[in-house]
């Protein structure tokens, strides 16, 4: 048998070909081109929904936002963009800033920290915008801080976890209301403060944390010292990898340790996994979980439905008569009207109000100083009080964190289904499904074991 005719590479390759190759190739090229055009066109249209020309006369004040519009942080990033865009519309409808229209220049940082850093640099040096905003979350935001320092610019951060701890940058300010002492954030210590008030006082605790900046440090630098101080005995502690798929083994271990209460510092997917696993085992401690990032998002709440009943977790804000800050209701109405069509959190209680408040601080600082000079703006922000939709008397500490922490613990109760109405709260009447149980300043009900 001719060696070349059977089994050779050219022969094998030719076996994959058919006789109508040219016409089909043309057909496929056209089809491929059409699909590519549709995707590119669709993407352009999608993004064009966000980009609106700034009205009004004069040279616009340009604000740069490198935000994660794709990738792991895109759900939050999109809602930040929407909230910021609402502020731009609001301020332009009032005549702009310093009499000039405001224009938002934004890019997709793709949840990629190195790209985020490049985009911040680009916004400063190529686009030469007047103010640059930090991208949402520690992963994206913290690596950008040196660029802000290099440009001696104000660094408006949004939910960076203890972002300025290492830099101590003078013009940094953070909207996450965790307070000025980094490891002892409200969302860590809240559950322990509530536990301390229970009768009889719980003695044992299990600590669970996802192996990232939040989970790891919340456990080792927050929960563990608090347990030592308050006399809670840690009977189980686990730091698990972020991509853990099944939480039954961990839930089994907690059940075997049988603590009085459980503190968990999670991210969204592991929060869902843990809650389902606990439910499936039929295990429930007296008080759980406190520090789950994810239970604030409407979509995550809807995915769990009645499984949330009894759980106590941190939040920063929900509509209630005790948290009716000036302007918040109007903002949420505008946000919710637009959110549904854009595929972002439809209720927007968690992050969007703080993204909007960030812009209110910049607005008030610019109007008060009458300048876009960053040194003047930075000094003003450090030393003045701001009226925002998340706190009408917001002041910053020396390290740029909120001078006074502001967090709430909510207990989920009476949830019957996964319908969005179960998680919709009102400013007129306290919710009986998401009850604020801590702190007393904002509480709308007592914790029920």
């Amino acid at each position: 048998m001719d060696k070349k005719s059977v089994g050779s590479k050219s022969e094998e390759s030719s076996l994959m070909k058919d006789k109508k190759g040219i016409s089909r190739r043309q057909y496929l090229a056209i089809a491929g081109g059409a699909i590519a055009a549709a995707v590119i066109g669709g993407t352009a249209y999608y993004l064009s929904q966000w980009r609106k020309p700034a009205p009004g006369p004069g040279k616009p004040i340009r604000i740069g936002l490198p935000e994660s519009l794709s990738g792991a942080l895109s759900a939050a990033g999109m809602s930040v963009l929407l909230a910021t865009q609402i502020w731009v519309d609001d301020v332009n409808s009032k005549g702009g800033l310093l009499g000039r229209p405001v224009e938002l220049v934004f890019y997709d940082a793709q949840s990629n920290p190195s790209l985020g850093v490049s985009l911040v640099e680009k916004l400063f040096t190529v686009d030469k915008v007047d103010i640059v905003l930090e991208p949402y979350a520690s992963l994206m935001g913290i690596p950008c801080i040196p660029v802000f320092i290099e440009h001696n610019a104000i660094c408006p951060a949004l939910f960076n976890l203890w972002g300025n701890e290492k830099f101590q940058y003078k013009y940094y300010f953070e909207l996450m209301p965790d307070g000025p002492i980094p490891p002892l954030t409200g969302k860590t210590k809240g559950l322990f403060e509530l536990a301390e008030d229970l009768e009889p006082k719980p003695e044992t605790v299990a600590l669970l944390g996802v192996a990232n900046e939040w989970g790891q440090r919340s456990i080792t630098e927050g929960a563990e010292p608090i347990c030592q101080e308050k006399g809670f005995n840690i009977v189980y502690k686990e730091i698990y990898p972020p991509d853990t798929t099944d939480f039954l083994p961990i839930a089994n271990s907690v059940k075997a340790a049988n603590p009085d209460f459980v503190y968990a510092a999670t991210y969204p997917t592991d929060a869902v996994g843990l809650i389902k696993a606990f439910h499936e085992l039929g295990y429930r401690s007296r008080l759980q979980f406190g520090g789950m990032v994810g239970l604030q998002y409407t979509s995550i709440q809807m995915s769990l439905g009645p499984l949330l009943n009894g759980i106590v977790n941190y939040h920063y804000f929900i509509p209630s008569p005790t948290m009716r800050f000036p302007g918040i209701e109007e903002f949420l109405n505008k946000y919710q009207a637009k959110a549904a069509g854009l595929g972002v959190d439809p209720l927007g209680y968690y992050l969007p109000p703080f993204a909007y408040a960030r812009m209110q601080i910049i607005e008030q600082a610019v109007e008060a100083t009458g300048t876009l000079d960053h040194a003047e703006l930075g000094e003003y922000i450090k030393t003045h009080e701001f009226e925002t939709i998340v706190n009408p008397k917001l002041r910053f500490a020396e390290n740029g964190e909120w001078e006074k922490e502001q967090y709430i613990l909510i207990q989920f109760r009476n949830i019957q289904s996964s319908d969005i109405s179960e998680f919709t709260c009102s400013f007129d009447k306290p919710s009986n499904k998401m009850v604020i149980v801590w702190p007393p300043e904002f509480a709308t009900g007592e914790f029920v074991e």
Partner: protein
Amino acid sequence: LIELILNTIVAGILLGGFYTLISLGLSIAFGLINISNIAHPTFVLAGGYFAYTLYTALGIDPIISGVISIPLFFIIGVFLYRVYNVLIEKRGHEKGLISLVFLFSLLILIEVGLLMIFGADWRSVYTPYMVQSVKVGMLSIPLRMFIPFVIASIVDIFFYYLFSKTFFGLGVRAIAQNPSAAMLMGYNPLKINMLAFGISLASAALGGSLLIMIQPIYPFSDRAFIGRVFAVVVLGGMGSLYGTIVASIILGLVEAVVAVFLGASWSMLISFAILLLTLLLKPEGLFRR
């Protein structure tokens, strides 16, 4: 302690069942028709969104959606293989970087498409029966993991029959070994591979419909599974469906047992250490094709 050990072993086996379901299709594509389909977990994700759409629009249970997705994704797979064949194989690029770039581009296109259609928010379905457990003595068996395990077992049996007893299945394996000889036996490599890739994507979509019952998804949640499914296929032995099943169960068991007795942070480390060790001792994986 005995209860903890037994429940841990059961949890590991059930987790392995889910890994099997999302890896079998890749085993066919990667091991039998030589397509290192890096976009395989993205099709799993697309299957999840398909189930989500039917659930929210028509109230259809994700398991039913999984069944409905099979013919749809099969057709998509057949079409995609044809495109791959024309653009990559006919030009002799199937073993080079271009093939990988093509598949990675496909991955990005699907992710961006999902982002445009569904937005960036988390999506999930809530099915009350899936958060129940069955108690058998000391064992607590969650339906959320047990149902995927049962479906994976059915798919295993079907694939075993298909790839070892049918003319088509034997053809897939024959072409993987020697296309020229297979052609002499009456097989059309192009058609056989088109069908095999269709089956690969159909099983991915079925896995996706169960993924959304296990955890919420967003347009980029496929990335978390890329390493794991390739690890399963490589550990099991390229193209060995039996090996894929065994490797899935091993990785599931290791993850669960290590999480309980050593700490969850050690799970992935030990899983991949086992993979490396296996490749060192048996480069072809646990089982040969």
